[in-house]
């Protein structure tokens, strides 16, 4: 027999205080009873539990009766109910989509977990985990990042493992030939008493394909393979024009968009006066803000397609995951 909602609410009001202290019960409410996965038309008193336990494993007083005042009950496993945490909070285990950063930076986003030779690492940008090249292997990575209150050593979650250096325009060149030529010139200047010295800089843009780094968790159980509000990664995909995408990031949370440009070559600023050229990037609309760097970008089937690293007021720039995985020798 179906009861009206007021009758069920009244029954709940008198039984709530008896139900909530029972072992495993975390919430009570009024809802339609679900039998074998199908919603029935009968209103019931719903008891949410951390986990379902066989009746004979429970003390009699912890058993939810099949009916209260003639109204059926329903036991639903919801798990532990927690207040929703801000993405800038400390998470253990830490999922993808939360604040992370090298000791010397502000904060970025923990993208997702990846593997290299069977070991698990966290993936984000070079400018998040490796301070834009200014870092050493083994440096402390904090969760949350320093800007979000992450402190060393209490909030250290990982050590920097590896990064792909970003090549900046107009910075000292790493070309050995040019360095040799300049050394000769400078020796000549010195020998004639000139105070002028030469140095080599990159005038020609050296094209970057990724802004990526990985860090090794201190403990494997302090990180989590799921991404906040997205869930598990279903595999690897590839970005193409018009593809619907989503990301989960520290600052703007879960956002969706569409790939508006492919094959993008772009000049990207890294702080005042520092510029880097990137090629073969993906561009999407405004779906990120500062602090979202390092977010994993997925398609609507949860396939990983990119690593978010830059943007403007009305665009977002994303590394192709193919390049990230090949340059850092990663797998899922």
């Amino acid at each position, binding site marked *: 027999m179906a009861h009206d909602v007021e009758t069920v609410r009244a029954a709940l009001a008198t039984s709530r205080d008896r139900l909530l202290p029972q072992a495993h019960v975390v919430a009570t409410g009024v809802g339609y009873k679900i039998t074998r996965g199908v919603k029935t038309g009968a209103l019931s008193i719903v008891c949410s539990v951390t986990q379902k336990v066989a009746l004979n494993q429970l003390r009699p007083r912890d058993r939810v009766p099949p009916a209260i005042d003639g109204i059926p009950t329903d036991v639903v496993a919801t798990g532990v109910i927690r207040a929703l945490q801000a993405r800038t909070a400390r998470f253990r285990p830490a999922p993808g989509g939360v604040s992370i950063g090298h000791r010397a930076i502000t904060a970025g986003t923990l993208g997702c977990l990846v593997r290299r030779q069977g070991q698990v690492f966290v993936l984000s*940008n070079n400018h998040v985990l490796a301070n834009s090249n200014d870092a050493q292997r083994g440096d402390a990575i904090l969760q949350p990042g320093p800007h979000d209150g992450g402190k060393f050593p209490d909030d250290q979650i990982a050590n920097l493992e590896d990064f792909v250096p970003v090549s900046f325009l107009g910075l000292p060149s790493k070309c050995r030939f040019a360095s040799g030529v300049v050394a000769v010139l400078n020796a000549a200047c010195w020998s004639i008493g000139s105070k002028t010295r030469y140095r080599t800089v990159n005038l020609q843009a050296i094209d970057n394909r990724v802004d990526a780094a990985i860090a090794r968790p201190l403990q494997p159980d302090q990180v989590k393979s799921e991404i906040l509000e997205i869930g598990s990664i279903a595999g690897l995909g590839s970005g193409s024009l018009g593809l619907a995408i989503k990301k989960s990031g520290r600052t703007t949370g879960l956002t969706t968009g569409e790939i508006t*440009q492919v094959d993008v070559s772009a000049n990207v600023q890294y702080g005042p006066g520092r510029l880097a050229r990137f090629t073969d990037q993906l561009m999407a609309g405004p779906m990120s803000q500062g602090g979202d760097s390092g977010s994993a970008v997925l398609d609507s089937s949860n396939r990983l397609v990119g690593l978010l690293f830059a943007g403007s007021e009305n665009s977002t720039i994303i590394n192709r995951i193919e390049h990230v995985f090949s340059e850092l020798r990663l797998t899922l």
Partner: protein
Amino acid sequence: MKRAVAAALALLISWTGAAGEKAMSPTIQEVKTKHAPRFLALSGVVSVGIGRDADGREVIVIGLDRARPETQASLPAQLDGYRVRVEIIGTLKAR
């Protein structure tokens, strides 16, 4: 037998024809790759990529940090047969 030879000949001609055509017109990727460094050296150009126009055709998209009348005036409307669109993207920053 004659028929088979004729068919083979026709196939050969159409194949060489197609190959010739391909060599004549480069892909939009090739055109973009060839010209991107030149555009990215212009003041205010932040990106060069491949997008779509309202009709779904692929176009070369040149992104600017803000309105740049001088740079815009120097940009072509077409490149090797592909349309060029100019968009204000804004300054791109690592986030």
